[in-house]
């Protein structure tokens, strides 16, 4: 029995438009024109207990809408969703006891209170026993080092400190599933490591299912076994990370040319290029042009001093997905 089961999930929003000015306002009182936005279409998703899923897609692809339906914030327009046997929307409070959430910019903590007090409040809300509470706080402190700022009000914390607290807070009641939305955004490498460590531990040691939405390649590579890709409301890929890279045929070649100015390559199959630190990064589709063919053309036209062919890598794939959607423009 899967932990999360979504069948034919659909969410449509109505965006009302209104003409400008007084005339438009009066008109809108009588009838309103609207546009239907299909945020999520026909989504089928099954997640087993203990999995760590990366949920990726360009902005507007429907990621947060899906998560909001899974957490009970939004009601689906049609289709069913079941989380641990419960309907998250109609059985919201019951479902909420078994989930943890980190919503990127929105904090689950109390702004003016010391961290300590926020956790005490959460302890009450999620009915964590005194014993469990103490045990877990000590354990989380080990990895996340919360005691450094335990008595500080949340508003005085740095982004990294706040995120560590948010994560600890999300896992405090050891829910069955935790939804993380951009947990490492804007953080420096050291903090990211620590956070990933923590998430890994929670997933492997406590069998807590994690659904992670992120732009960060490091997050994806380090944490996720399974990737689900969303584009324009539809699921376009659901499987292992390695296979994803295979499927996306974009590859990157990095060149050191004598004269970067005026570098322009018009070869079929080249998806684009950009200048980075004096080196040029060419992205190409290996199905259309092979690396060796491309190289030959470049050597013909430019004085290439050095080059590097990047291994099929997730960064290019993710970049492409986030910038262009699955089909690209």
């Amino acid at each position, binding site marked *: 029995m899967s932990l999360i089961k979504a069948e034919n999930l659909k969410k449509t*929003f109505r965006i009302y438009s209104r003409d400008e000015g007084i005339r438009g306002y009066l008109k809108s009182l009588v009838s309103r024109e609207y546009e239907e936005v299909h*945020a999520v279409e026909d989504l089928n998703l099954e997640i087993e207990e203990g999995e760590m899923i990366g949920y990726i897609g360009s*902005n*507007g692809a*429907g990621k*947060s*809408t899906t998560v*909001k339906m899974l*957490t*009970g*914030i*939004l*009601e689906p327009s049609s289709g069913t969703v079941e989380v641990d046997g419960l309907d998250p929307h109609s059985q*919201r*409070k*019951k479902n*909420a*006891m078994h*989930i943890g*959430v980190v*919503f990127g910019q*929105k*904090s*689950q903590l*109390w702004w*003016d*209170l010391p961290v300590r*007090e926020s956790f*005490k*409040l959460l302890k*009450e*809300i*999620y*009915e964590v026993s005194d014993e469990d509470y103490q045990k877990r706080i000590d354990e989380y402190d080990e990895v996340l080092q919360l005691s450094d700022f335990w008595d500080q009000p949340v508003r005085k914390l740095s982004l990294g400190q706040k995120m560590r607290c948010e994560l600890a807070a999300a896992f405090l009641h050891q829910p069955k599933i935790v939804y993380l939305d951009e947990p490492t955004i804007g953080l420096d490498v050291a903090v990211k490591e620590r956070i990933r460590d923590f998430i890994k531990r929670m997933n492997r040691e406590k069998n807590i299912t994690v659904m992670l939405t992120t732009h960060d390649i490091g997050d994806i590579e380090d944490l996720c076994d399974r990737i689900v890709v969303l584009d324009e409301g539809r699921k376009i890929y659901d499987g292992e990370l390695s296979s994803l890279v295979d499927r996306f045929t974009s590859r990157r070649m990095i060149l050191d040319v004598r004269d970067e100015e005026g570098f322009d390559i018009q070869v079929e199959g080249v998806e684009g290029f950009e200048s980075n630190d004096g080196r040029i990064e060419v992205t190409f589709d290996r199905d259309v042009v092979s690396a060796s063919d491309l190289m030959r053309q470049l050597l013909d036209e430019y004085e290439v001093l050095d080059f590097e062919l990047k291994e099929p890598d997730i960064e290019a794939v993710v970049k492409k997905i986030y910038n262009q959607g699955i089909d690209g423009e």
Partner: protein
Amino acid sequence: MKLKKHLKIYGKYFKQYWKTRLVYKTDFLLNSLSQMLNLATSLAFLTLIFTQVDSINGWTFPEMLFLAGVGGISMNIHHIFMLHITNLGEDYIVTGDLDRFKVRPLNVLYQVYASNVRDENFPKLITNIALVAYASGQMGLNLVRPEFLLYGVPVLVSSVFTFGSVYLAVSSLGFWMARSRPLTWIVFRLSDFRRYPFSIYSRSVKIILVTLVPLAFASFFPATFFLDRFENGFYQYFSIAAGPVFYGLAYLFWKKGLSKYTSTGS
């Protein structure tokens, strides 16, 4: 038990709120001062009116003070604990902050109420209680009677919720209009109607005050009970039921709005 948990948590919220309160001392002092000034102006208005007449529709000055005080007590108690809902549109819907509340295993409306305590109304509450005491003294009315206690306590609780129903219903419009604070100004003005005898109003206004904006049940009718003005027996007793009834209706409206809520962002 669900209720016990909610109460316990509210207690903690409240305690925490007070701790942060001390940080914003000037805010509190200034706001309390302006609220007291407002109350003083209303009383001054009442006093000035009585330089023109000896009674309004048969109501004497002490009776008017009593009426103002009674309505004021239930309103102040409401405002201290439940006024925060008026910020629904601006502080929770537009910001998408309501999402945070929806993922917690607690009632959402409860969380909004618990997020703030408008303690600047507390000095007003004390003043209104003093006003009732003073007015009773002036009239030789003994309030400490068993039947008054039997009626008074439930009607007080009910009155707070009657006020609550009006503010909740209007604030819930925030789900459709994304703003709620300006709409509540109209309710504030309507709340002023509680200070005057029912009989001065036209028929249509009277109907509104017992149906759409049932504030008469939270001020006027209870006051007539204590003042021995038994003209409206049914209405006086219904005042005890008015709170739960109207609040229940308002709550249904709130729920409708909440399910329609789609947070901002994609």
